[in-house]
């Protein structure tokens, strides 16, 4: 626990100093995933480009494992882990979301009723930190290993236990932690890739969402005709990878395939 914290603080300060070498340690996990483990030693440049800013290495390992169950990689395409959702969560927790910017944070904090919503004295970054620690503690006690080291079936069992509230955590309610993780995973899978998730627009491709909208004035009346476009992200437009009209709407490139509407 304290080791993880020390590591995190070190990484944070290293990142703040702009130090190149130490950042790679945390980023290594991510980089390996991005490359499907084919390159065990990440290139320094790639590792530095997207450093984890909040999560420790242990927390990255935990979330990589967890989100790969929430939205798994399967015959339909990449899952949350492949789509960079762990990195998305890291960035969210490091920023305003993690510290409850623009939210009411004054006490006191009685638990309240479900109808009263979020009443924790912890911010989301604190919820993750506590939830991961406690879940790993539970896994150590029950299986003798941390969550990321468990077999997939055991991981699935643990996640179901958190989801259903059957596993009790010490510092944070298990369902509260689980629901936050699930919500953020769905966000990271479907949010614009500028936030670090939805890599390769995997989420958008899964459902056929075109991302930044084009002008649909004509197509809205083409009832029953599927609109199949290559999805466009904010960065595609700012990076001039997508053509735009005079108001800045992308001109979508349509996908022509035989399975249209299937």
């Amino acid at each position: 626990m304290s080791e993880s914290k020390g590591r995190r603080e070190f990484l944070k300060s290293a990142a703040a100093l702009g130090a190149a070498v130490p950042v790679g340690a945390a980023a290594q996990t991510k980089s390996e995933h991005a490359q499907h483990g084919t390159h065990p030693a990440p290139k320094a440049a790639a590792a530095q480009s997207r450093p984890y800013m909040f999560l420790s290495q242990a927390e990255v390992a935990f979330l990589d494992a967890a989100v790969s169950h929430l939205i798994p990689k399967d015959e339909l395409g990449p899952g949350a882990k492949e789509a960079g959702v762990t990195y998305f969560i890291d960035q969210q927790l490091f920023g305003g979301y993690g510290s409850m910017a623009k939210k009411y944070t004054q006490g006191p904090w009685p638990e309240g009723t479900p109808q009263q919503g979020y009443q924790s004295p912890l911010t989301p970054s604190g919820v993750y930190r506590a939830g991961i620690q406690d879940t790993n503690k539970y896994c150590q006690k029950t299986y003798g290993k941390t969550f990321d080291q468990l077999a997939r079936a055991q991981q699935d069992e643990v996640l179901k236990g958190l989801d259903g509230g059957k596993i009790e955590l010490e510092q944070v309610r298990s369902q509260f932690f689980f629901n936050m993780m699930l919500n953020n995973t769905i966000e990271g899978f479907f949010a614009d890739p500028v936030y670090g998730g939805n890599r390769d627009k995997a989420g958008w491709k899964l459902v056929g969402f075109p991302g930044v909208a084009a002008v649909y004035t004509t197509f809205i009346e083409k009832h029953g005709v599927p609109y199949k476009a290559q999805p466009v992200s904010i960065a595609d437009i700012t990076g001039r990878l997508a053509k735009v009209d005079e108001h800045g709407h992308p001109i979508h490139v349509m996908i022509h395939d035989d399975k249209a509407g299937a």
Partner: protein
Amino acid sequence: MATRLKPVDVVTVGVGLTGTILAKELAESGLKVVGLERGAWRDTQSDFAMPYAHDELRYARRHELMQDLSRETLTFRNSTNDLALPMRYMGSFLPGEGVGGAAVHWNGVTWRFLPWDFETRSRTLARYGASQLAEDCTSQDWGVTYDELEPHFDRFEYLYGICGKAGNLKGKVQDGGNPFEGPRARDYPNPPMKTSHVGAIYAKAAKELGYHPFPAPSANMTRPYTNPYGVTLGACVYCGYCERFGCEMGAKASPQTTVLPVLMKNPNYELRTLSRVIKVNLDSDKKRAVSVTYVDSRGREFEQPADLILLTSYVFSNVRLMLLSGIGKAYDPAANTGVVGRNYAYQTNGNVTAFFEDKVFNQFMGAGALSMMIDDLDGDNFDHTGLGFIGGGWIGAASSGARPIDFHPVPQGTPRWGSEWKKQVSRYYNRAFGINTHGACQSYRGNYLDLDPTYRDAYGLPLLRMTFDFRPNEYKMSEHLTKKAAEIAKAAGATKMSVTPRTGKYSIVPYQSTHNTGGVAMGADRATSAVNKYLQSWDVHNVFVVGASAFPQNGGYNPTGTVGALTFHALDAIKSKYLKQPGPLA
């Protein structure tokens, strides 16, 4: 110590939909008007530009355009027996912050309430008798009728360029419009929106069942439109980013696209942003307001004297400022006395999600108010004998933008995560749509707003406390409407559906609607209303409180059209009566 500023004629507390219209009209008549806005300046070019405008995480999930709760929120409990706790995150409703207010991020559905809505109590008693109303129901007549408001609805619709099809022109029912609406003097200024695939399917099914579908009245422009103030709005491109977003096309009516370009040029008007009003100051006998106190972005306190003080903020801020300033007696639900905070109501929404196997809908296209609706089951448009409730709501199928973080429906029984969830999301994202049942909400003795005894805002002032829950009338109404919606979904060919009437305790967590109403209710009797029929405080005659805070209960409609009509109604009273002879108008 507050710095005392040079007196002006008029102050508006809040620079949103109501504050901009009142300021524009009064400044034009020669009065010096100051607009005080707690948030920042926002405009189409500078703040809602492409491609950043189309960012679901930033706007829909992280609430970029909405109230900063770290400064001020409210507390909530279901009943007086519970302990109220602060709303730490927004969920159920989304008040705005900054110039334009919530009218920047609204969808744009712009109704007129029914003639019946303005006379809820007397018409219910006349048709059904006292037994139809719950014992603790405090719903009442508004003190103003539809006929009195008709010209003001008209002015607002032409100012905001509303797109629709008249259903009742001077008493003559029109094909293709809403046959249940009150008579209107003329048609909408702009033609209705195009019909989406979902709209066409829904309308066909509803018609087959004997209902009267029509396109929703919309503030998303169907063509470029120049309003009577000379401001031109762009045409909607059906991009599907309306509610919770600003419009990059200037095609959604808002203060920015209808009033501000003219208002900001008027030398009689001064806008002060990042200025938070904390109190309205009264004279020694508490019959007249003399000034407002506000804090600016450098923490400086100012006192702004004015002859006329218009509270033009969102419902909660209007009510809270009345309570903080001691204008009118605070409501006490135990004794059922007092008026400020009384008759808080909301919206009772249900939903049917309809799933199809053989159709695709492209629901990511659309516009905030792109919807086909029926009004057959709203207000008293149907016989309530034996139903055990009053009121109703519209039932409609919208194409308002299916952004995938929030919209990824799965059939009932699907796990919440894992491979099966992913499979169903992928299968039904483009093969499902929702039918909303947008129900009214009556007012009750135990539903009210007051000041919280524990929690405070960033300025050390007590937060507003909401005590609210739905009542049997609302549950029965929602069940009735949602059952009918399910019949329409079935007739439309849905193979699976999730039917969700409003059940259980009211929760502040899931989004329902930003249609909070009441707390400074209007009426003909000062014992049961905080403002008279002109929205003038009964107690402090130079304070007018303009907004949905004046609704004595909520109808089965989105409130904005009626808020607009009340604004012009109050304006007329101020211009033609009050300014000539300041004093109580009723």
